[in-house]
């Protein structure tokens, strides 16, 4: 794939060329999505008639990462860290304040019209709450089939019913349920409908925003297994957003940890879970309850004090410094960049991965057996 081109900014790339680039096939293992310094600031206004901006909620403030074809990138973080806003920005459901999202070399934040429509066909989303993300007045067939009204090139009119039934079969639902309404299904089944809708247009990327957190444990495993199966079958790339670190480890190839609108640490699942170098990741991992009572005695727990600061007024320097036990003067003044820490640079250890901390240090908190 070509390097991210900025030519379309100047209008040098025509819409047709952009659509052609978007429809072009891509090799496994190549970056399919490149996010560069993505920002989203929601303005805070005062006044009713004459609104003036008094500040901004910096929900996403400079996030960069790559998604490779065929992989699953997990994004974890506490509520309010901006992970769902990132998902919306990647779909172009929110316009980014600054930064770029390159999909096959095309910056989707600047696309419009036919090219944007082509991108949206290839990037689909599965939402968290299967109870509110399905229209209660539409049948399952209409919910899934609606996508074909917008993108008629995927399925010709006469063929849609069969196509929807096929999709239901793929996600493990009885194809005869096509005329049922969402309330006739359980939570796990509804999430399957949501997944079928996401699959309908044969997308290349599916962004899953907390897809299993509303489900019961036994059903959660069914849905996670289904998603893994579908990934192999349809050659999908996933961005898997969740707050449950165990699920993320299970499904992800690489994991990014977000804190207050910034990426704190990113690496492969072994690097992040077994060799975390950022203190926030370490605290997050140590706080996860392990379903093994034998482990509770010898487990070291780092309990953070306080809450996440407000993203409208984030701390200066490192954003984690207010809750960090390692914080020094440097942390208040200098923003740590997301890069391989100097002490690990050039070393062949799993600790050598990107971490945004001045005092990055390896610490095994999970004690994998």
């Amino acid at each position, binding site marked *: 794939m070509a390097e991210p081109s900025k030519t379309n900014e100047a209008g040098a790339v025509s819409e047709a060329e952009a659509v052609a680039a978007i429809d072009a096939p891509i090799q496994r293992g190549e970056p399919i999505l490149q996010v560069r310094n993505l920002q989203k600031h929601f303005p805070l206004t005062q006044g009713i008639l004459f609104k003036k901006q008094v500040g901004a909620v910096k929900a996403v403030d400079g996030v960069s990462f790559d998604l490779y074809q065929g992989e699953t990138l997990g994004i974890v973080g*506490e509520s309010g860290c901006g992970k769902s806003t990132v998902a919306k920005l990647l779909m172009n459901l929110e316009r980014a304040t600054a930064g770029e999202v390159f999909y096959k070399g095309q910056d989707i934040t600047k696309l419009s019209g036919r090219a944007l429509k082509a991108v949206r066909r290839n990037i689909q989303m599965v939402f968290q709450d299967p109870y509110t993300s399905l229209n209660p007045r539409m049948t399952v067939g209409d919910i899934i089939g609606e996508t074909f009204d917008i993108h008629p090139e995927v399925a010709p009119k006469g063929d849609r019913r069969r196509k929807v039934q096929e999709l239901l079969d793929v996600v493990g639902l009885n194809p005869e349920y096509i005329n049922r309404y969402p309330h006739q299904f359980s939570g796990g089944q509804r999430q399957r409908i949501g997944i079928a809708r996401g699959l309908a247009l044969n997308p290349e990327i599916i962004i899953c925003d907390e897809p299993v957190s509303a489900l019961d444990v036994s*059903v959660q495993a069914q849905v996670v297994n289904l998603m893994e199966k579908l990934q192999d079958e349809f050659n999908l790339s996933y961005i898997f957003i969740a707050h449950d670190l165990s699920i993320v480890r299970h499904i992800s190839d690489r994991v990014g940890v977000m804190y207050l609108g910034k990426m704190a640490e990113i690496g492969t699942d072994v690097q992040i879970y077994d060799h975390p170098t950022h203190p926030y990741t370490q605290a997050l991992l140590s706080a996860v*309850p392990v*379903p093994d009572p034998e482990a509770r005695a010898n487990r070291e727990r780092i309990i953070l004090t306080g809450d996440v600061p407000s993203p409208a007024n984030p701390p200066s320097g490192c954003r984690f410094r207010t809750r960090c036990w390692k914080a020094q003067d440097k942390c208040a003044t200098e923003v740590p960049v997301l890069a391989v820490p100097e002490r690990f640079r050039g070393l062949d250890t799993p600790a050598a991965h990107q971490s945004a901390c001045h005092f990055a240090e390896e610490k095994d908190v999970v004690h994998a*057996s």
Partner: protein
Amino acid sequence: MSTIDKTATVPAPRGGDHTGPLLEVRDLHVEFHTRDGVAKAVNGVNYSVNAGETLAVLGESGSGKSVTAQAIMGILDMPPGKIPQGEILFRGQDMLKMSNEERRKIRGRKIAMIFQDALSSLNPVLSVGYQLGEMFRVHQGLSKKDATARAIELMDRVKIPAAKARVSDYPHQFSGGMRQRIMIAMALALEPDLIIADEPTTALDVTVQAQVMDLLAELQQEFNMGLILITHDLGVVADVADKIAVMYAGRIVEQAPVHELYKRPAHPYTRGLLDSIPRLDQKGQELYAIKGLPPNLLKIPSGCAFNPRCPKATDLCHTEVPPLVPVTEQDGTELPGRKSACHFWKETIHG
């Protein structure tokens, strides 16, 4: 589970002469009469909690774990709810036979409850100080001023920073973790003997969850309270519980001390649950998934309620309801506190 052979007449104060368990639920049944039929939410539950002990009630949604707790608290909506049989003994006295006035004296003062969703459990138009102080005003007849002072003390106790300044703030001004602390403070206000915590950390982030669970454990130790922790999170349970009761379709299917349960489950449902959770410290292959769905409470399957989802089900499971029987070692030695409601518990635990 020990049995009580004498019945105390009055709920005795803390450290009183009552020797049995603090709370004992015996053969409790709860059903809801709905337009579509009778939903049997709880079908014969037995458990007990001692002072200073933590009992975790584990189950998926619809397993009857919260309904049991509501029946204990006496906050079940009746109708449509109905308790056709069963006993709930608090310090040896059956609460289901008490008058409303007597139950009111126990509720809040002796048994308190922490709810899952702190934002919807707190009144949004009253300050937290007022809501905390209400406990003292109503139960102890304190003046408004004294009640507020006590509310500040409580907020300090649950480690809410700047309690004095925040006592007149409203619930929406607090973060999720802080709100849950206020719920805990409210439950602790009258220093009850027993706290029922219904999914106290489900809505919280992991880092905050750890803070809240730690606080709860600390306070429990300080006051020597009994704690019933209702949850579906096997991780949280492993961290804090002393013993576990696993519920499925309104019945307890397995009961065991915490270490035993995780090491050797004696019921296929428990085994399935343990296998279906992804582990932080292991990158597994495919997750084990319990096939099918939890049963509809209007139409609970005949025989063992778990039989349509069970990998080991035989004809016997379709016809006969397995009783909750004590589990023993292979050589017949007793395993204290262990029970299983499976026809094939021997194969499950020793196989």
